[in-house]
């Protein structure tokens, strides 16, 4: 596979990874973003890593499409030896999740779907390390992957009007935590009491693209205690 640099408007390009596997592809685009941010050229306005791609926005008063394309080939996408070569070391988070609250609507459905027990759903969700593949949807919302196939679950046919803040959920082979109460169509399996987004904090989002996340089961009592300590939740 070769690196693909594609036009994304008068002031943007999107670069696609040159490797097949999702994790490797993501490591590669994270590496490119890291290189770009280390160099911090004055024309760089924004960069977004998501799964297999890196979108970047440049200042069209300073440079143009050809300049940016050439710069990327010279400094970034043409130079590394392995996909992970330039990636920064990932930060590892262990997040507490309570899997025993009454409003976790979909745990039993997932268990039934795969012919396993609810405890096995919890075990499978906890036993794996997940990678933050992208941020989006809502402030602090991180797309984590990949959930093992024996836990994957399609989105709900009709999204719920209200998913509570902290809901831990699965959609296909992705898992995530809803940072605030919002509508949502993912399958809810638990609640996480940790504040994922705080506009006053720098950076505001706890989870960053490329980070690693592990879930640890906690009791309902622990959840209540941590939830009350969390403050400003809605």
């Amino acid at each position, binding site marked *: 596979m070769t690196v693909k640099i*594609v*036009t*994304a*408007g*008068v*002031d*943007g390009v*999107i670069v696609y990874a040159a490797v097949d596997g999702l994790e490797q592809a993501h490591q590669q685009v994270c590496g490119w973003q890291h290189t770009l941010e280390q160099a911090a050229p004055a024309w760089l*306005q*924004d*960069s*977004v*890593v*998501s*799964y*297999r*791609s*890196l*979108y*970047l*926005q440049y200042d*069209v*008063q300073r440079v*143009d*499409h050809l300049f940016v394309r050439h710069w990327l080939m010279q400094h970034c996408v043409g130079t590394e030896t392995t996909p992970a070569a330039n990636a920064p070391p990932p930060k590892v988070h262990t997040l507490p999740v309570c899997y025993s609250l009454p409003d976790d609507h979909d745990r039993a459905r997932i268990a039934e779907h795969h012919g396993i027990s609810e405890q096995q759903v919890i075990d499978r969700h906890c036993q794996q390390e997940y990678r933050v593949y*992208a*941020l*989006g*949807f*809502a*402030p*602090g*919302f*991180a*797309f984590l992957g990949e959930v093992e196939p024996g836990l994957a679950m399609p989105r709900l046919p009709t999204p719920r009007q209200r998913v509570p803040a902290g809901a831990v959920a699965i959609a296909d082979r992705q898992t995530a935590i809803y940072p*605030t109460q919002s509508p949502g169509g993912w399958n809810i399996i638990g609640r996480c009491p940790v504040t994922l987004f705080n*506009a006053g904090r720098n*950076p*505001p*989002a706890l989870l960053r693209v490329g980070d690693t996340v592990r879930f640890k089961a906690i009791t309902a009592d622990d959840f209540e205690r941590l939830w009350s300590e969390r403050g400003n939740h809605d």
Partner: protein
Amino acid sequence: MTDKAVLRITQASMQTLLTDRGRQGAGRQGLSQGGAVDGYSFDWASHLVGQAADSAGLEILIGPLALDVLQDCQVAITGAPGDILLDGVAQPSWQTLSLKAGQHLVIGQCDAGLRRYLAVGGGFQGCIQFGCVTTVPREHLGGLCGDGAALQQGDVLTLARQPTFIPHLSVPEAARPDFPDQLCVQVVMGYQYDLFSSSAVRQFGLSQYTVSQRADRMGVRLTGPAIESPVTQMASEGIGLGAVQIPADGQPIVMLNDRQSIGGYPKIGSVYPRDCQRLAQLAPGARLRFSTCSVFDADNRFHLERAQWQHWLAQMISTAGEK
């Protein structure tokens, strides 16, 4: 009430937002860009009151918006056309207006277009988050209190800085945009353009689309001849301003300032930034056509428009004080 209090809202429009040029580098953090959707009109309003374009003003959806003037100040109203009444006396848009404490300002409903802009000398104070005060209702961030709320009746607006009173300014006639209900916008081919079939690309270029009711600061959904979508599933990726998404139903969605930072629908290209501002002024029912261009055509247009804009700005400043 502080000595910086300048305007009090006595009647709120459908949606009035404290806004500015939006956030820099927001996509990196998974946040929306935000900012005035018709940045062209917004920038002129800022210049008319001697403000740097990064200061905060109001984006008024449709109107009317009524305000009590709490201290002498200079304001300017640009964007969509409509009445402006100061103690019942009609005032011009696209010019500096001097207001006195105790007066009552009514910014009427738009006659065409959707959004009117108000800037004040000194700029408005807001809750600074991510380097600006832009209100993003969808994210519950920004604005007066940092919770994404629109302005309400009774809200008091205060000045961010001590204002400097400037000679009267008026935007040159040629620089004032029209607000038509039909528009042809330029689309820079890109993203998944190569995956669309040649008949889908032709359909896109030749068809007329209508702005639907589902149009807001996040994006404008269009209705019209369906464009065949080339892929059913793709990994979500970063999306820039003006990206034209083609979901499975083939009805295009043009993404605007409050779009999410990533999306998983195939995109045929990007509406040119100035055309996004014009598109954001189209009311539901307005007609739209697309004309594709290369990134080089778009880059050329950008520099020509910028040179033209600088000329207009110089012209405005050289006639300062003339009425």
